[in-house]
């Protein structure tokens, strides 16, 4: 008797009780996510690289001031390089140098994107194409694209098309390769889940495979940009012609010819700056956004 009484006493309230247990579990088990405060971002992310740059400048200046390197033709002082920047800016040449190279680099990169993406899809999805092309792609990825400059000059002559050819040969394999590995790494579970929901064929590719492969694709784009920029600089340094205008690579080469180490330094710093800036302004935020959305970004 006592037994049945307890059961009838507890059973009717169970629905409500269970709902609240569940709500409690939900509240307890949801991981707390909050963005770090601004001050912490400044201290942990922005300050360290600034300190590193300052240290390099101090060492550089010390080498000059202490006369450890005493030949301006080998190592110009930071002030000399600064003056070179100032002159280029005041004469309105600085932005021209940057724009000549950046416009080439970005256009080449967009071309590489337009070619590399469908190529990656084909390699990932069509067995025959994969067997035929994938080894070539991996091989091309390890071939420094400077190697293409001499044949490109001979085939296409000294003009912009030769620059684009070299960029494409450097960037397309990275972009296509990134997409292929992104697609290869899509968890089979997602494909099964998609198929039970009716996402097969093109709908499966659009709703499941492509979004799942996005992180790999983005990594490929990032590397593709780095390769584009490198290939372009190599091409500009080796192949200079008055018709091509003065980009950053040509600026470096001009500095060497004029024995102006300050100009060479100016060019190197600009090449470095553009490469880092495009990565910081375009690719890193894009990648972070995608990874954070998926909970894949490890805080550190």
């Amino acid at each position, binding site marked *: 008797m006592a037994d049945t009484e307890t059961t009838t006493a507890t059973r009717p309230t169970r629905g409500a009780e269970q709902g609240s247990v569940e709500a409690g579990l939900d509240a307890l088990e949801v991981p707390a996510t909050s963005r770090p405060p601004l001050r912490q971002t400044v201290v942990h992310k922005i300050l360290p690289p600034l300190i590193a740059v300052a240290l390099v400048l101090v060492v550089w200046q010390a080498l000059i001031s202490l006369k450890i390197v005493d030949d301006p033709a080998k190592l110009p002082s930071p002030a000399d390089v600064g003056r070179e920047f100032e002159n280029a800016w005041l004469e309105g040449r600085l932005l021209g140098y940057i724009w000549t190279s950046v416009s080439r680099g970005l256009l080449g990169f967009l071309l590489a994107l337009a070619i590399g993406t469908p190529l990656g899809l084909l390699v990932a999805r069509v067995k025959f194409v994969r067997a035929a092309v994938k080894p070539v792609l991996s091989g091309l990825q390890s071939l420094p694209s400077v190697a293409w400059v001499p044949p490109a000059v001979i085939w296409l002559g000294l003009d912009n098309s030769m620059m684009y050819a070299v960029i494409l040969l450097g960037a397309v394999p990275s972009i296509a390769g990134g997409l292929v590995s992104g697609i290869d790494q899509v968890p089979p579970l997602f494909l099964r889940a998609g198929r039970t929901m009716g996402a097969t064929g093109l709908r499966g590719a659009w709703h499941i495979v492509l979004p799942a492969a996005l992180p790999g694709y983005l990594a490929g784009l990032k590397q593709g940009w780095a390769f584009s920029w490198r290939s372009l600089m190599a091409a500009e340094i080796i192949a200079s012609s008055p018709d091509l205008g003065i980009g950053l690579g040509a600026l470096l080469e001009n500095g060497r010819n004029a024995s102006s180490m300050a100009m060479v330094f100016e060019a190197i710093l600009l090449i470095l700056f553009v490469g880092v800036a495009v990565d910081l302004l375009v690719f890193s935020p894009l990648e972070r956004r995608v990874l954070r959305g*998926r909970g894949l970004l490890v805080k550190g």
Partner: protein
Amino acid sequence: MATTYAKAEKAARAAQAAEAAEAAEAAETGSASESADAGRYAARLRHVSKSFAGPGGEQLVLDDIDLDVAPGEFVTLLGASGCGKSTLLNLVAGLDRPSAGSLTTDGRPALMFQEHALFPWLTAGKNIELALRLRGVPASERRARVEELLALVRLHGAYGKRVHELSGGMRQRVAMARALAQDSRLLLMDEPFAALDAITRDTLHDELTRIWQETGLSVLFVTHNVREAVRLAQRVVLLSSRPGRVAREWTVDIPQPRRVEDAPVAELSLQITEVLRGEIRRHG
């Protein structure tokens, strides 16, 4: 919102059940057709076998399985590892084809996995919405339907949450809502709660029982946990291992809601465990 949905669903199921009863009558008079058959069973397996090419030649995984799941019935498939439970579920889900035998289901079943299998690039709500979109629900109706389904699994306000922001139990409830969004008559579940802690699993058992009763779905639930099988099912089917065959069946008459600690549940579990142990011992 949730209750109206459940009621509408219930009415639809009742109509279906009436149809099924008619079909049953028709079958008795000897005029059963294939389509009537489809309404009478959520799933029907006859002499289903499955073998895979293994290192030592053909390997028989499932051998001559006969299994019916009636509309609105909750069946658990129980067995030790290697009994081909997951293979069987893949066959019913249409992800794989049987080597021999016939298999019919009433429409395309929905499938829930041990892992939540939610897409991390979509929010919880968008995951559910994708299932609606893929079966052609118009865009204007989707949002309201998603909110109904979220309410059904008691996740009000989780629409915009990312998958990684949810706990394990919440993820499985979103996965359940996504499976329900497919509007299938049969829900297949492949050890969906095996990776959860005991308390969460307990609450999800209650949720599943409630949702099953509210929607009138048929459920085919695979597990290796005997108490879980008895806690949930109307009928427990035990598979033997290597190859998988139907070894025995139990009808569970204990009224819901049950708990795994209830005496009748524990008693039947003990009895089934004994038989299961015997099955395993044969391989020793």
